């Protein structure tokens, strides 16, 4: 099974061996080799220094894709899926065309590192998280994610969620709200360090191009809602996948529909958190991973497929869980 998955993945991505630098890759090569005073994206820059050619960069991305799929499978199993369900999660991640951008676009490695960090932290949080090894794992995951990209702070939302999911699993575990409070304090401190909430929300403002007054939070929420729906649709219909989707052209009703979908997914989590806790967690991972993208306004860069890969972790978990339930019903019916 494992060998078949690896061979199928290598076939699906066979074009990466001859891929060149594209889009913002060349700019990234230059940026990565300049001296940096900030620790933001430090891990991403380091990987670009280690793998400075198109071939080596794509090998690193493909290897990371495999590592992420393996960790996601282990996480699915730790969260309570059967080995069959965990394999479905792995296959969904390995072969889904919606995550192609994170593998074949070298610059999207920063998103892969965020996903890698999130999985390390969630794996640690899914066990005895209060013990030194668990805390070390959470901290390591957070550092990997933020070292990948600033949006790696999403780990601070995913860890309390994972701890909450396993709240009744361990006897003598501290309450789940302790990591939630610590995460809240860290998020608050991070916002303060960045210059306040307004500075974070208007992170992409640039004189002469994007004014902070050019966009309201309602506009931003709606356009990102439309983007969420677009990528969900592209997950099922890969003909829609593109390196630069026209989100400004998405009709208003589709934008509302995208936001409504997020509300529905949150509602599903609320309705199922007792009966199907893994499904509830998968839904919450999807919604929570989108929160930074819905709040921080980066008008020149709407939600793209590489960024959508982070919430897609929730989709993969939901597909694994759903298929596992389907198999159980099929076997009972037979």
């Amino acid at each position: 099974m494992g060998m078949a998955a690896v061979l199928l993945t290598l076939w699906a991505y066979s074009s990466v061996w001859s891929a060149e630098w594209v889009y913002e890759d060349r700019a990234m090569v230059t940026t990565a080799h300049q001296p940096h005073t900030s620790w933001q994206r430090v891990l991403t820059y380091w990987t670009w220094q280690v793998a400075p050619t198109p071939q080596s960069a794509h090998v690193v991305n493909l290897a990371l894709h495999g590592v992420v799929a393996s960790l996601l499978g282990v996480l699915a199993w730790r969260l309570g899926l059967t080995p069959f369900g965990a394999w479905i999660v792995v296959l969904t991640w390995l072969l889904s065309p919606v995550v192609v951008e994170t593998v074949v676009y070298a610059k999207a490695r920063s998103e892969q590192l965020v996903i890698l960090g999130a999985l390390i932290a969630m794996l640690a949080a899914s066990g005895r998280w209060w013990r030194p090894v668990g805390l070390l794992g959470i901290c390591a995951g957070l550092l990997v994610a933020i070292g990948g990209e600033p949006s790696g702070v999403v780990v601070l939302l995913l860890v309390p969620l994972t701890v909450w999911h396993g709240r009744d699993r361990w006897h003598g575990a501290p309450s789940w709200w302790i990591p939630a409070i610590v995460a809240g304090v860290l998020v608050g401190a991070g916002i303060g360090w960045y210059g306040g909430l307004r500075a974070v929300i208007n992170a992409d403002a640039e004189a002469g191009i994007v004014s902070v007054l050019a966009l309201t939070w309602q506009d931003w929420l709606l356009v990102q809602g439309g983007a969420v729906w677009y990528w969900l649709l592209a997950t099922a219909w890969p003909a829609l996948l593109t390196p630069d989707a026209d989100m400004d052209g998405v009709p208003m009703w589709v934008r509302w529909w995208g936001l409504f979908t997020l509300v529905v997914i949150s509602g599903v989590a609320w309705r199922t958190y007792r009966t199907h806790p893994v499904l509830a967690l998968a839904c919450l991972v999807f919604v929570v991973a989108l929160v930074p993208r819905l709040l921080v306004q980066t008008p020149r860069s709407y939600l793209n497929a590489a960024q959508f890969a982070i919430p897609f972790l929730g989709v993969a978990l939901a597909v694994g869980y759903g298929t596992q339930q389907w198999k159980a019903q099929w076997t009972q019916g037979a």
Partner: protein
Amino acid sequence: MRRFLRRLCGDLPPGLVGILALAYLAQASATHQYAPVWRTEFTVWARAAQLAPEKPRTLNNYGVVLAAAGRLEEARAMFERAHIAGQSPQLPPWDHVEGELRARENLVAVNDLIARVTR
């Protein structure tokens, strides 16, 4: 044959295995088709322009790639399209910058180049 199928599927119903195999082969095939879009600058922007025919940035970037490949007439047509798309009142202000300013600059440059080549 039945014994072979049982060995292959383990405790899974063969019908379920068949459906899942088809689903994941379809996924792998879609990935195999889409991944080459990211192989070169040209394939990236050709695909992007095909799916976003009204987006100034995409059209402008495709024009740049065409100009770099020496396809100047096609590049000019693309910059013109980007420039027109950039003037749409429905576009947000930052897309006007991409469309109107960059596309106009590139249009002037490619027209110069075409004039020099034809002279």
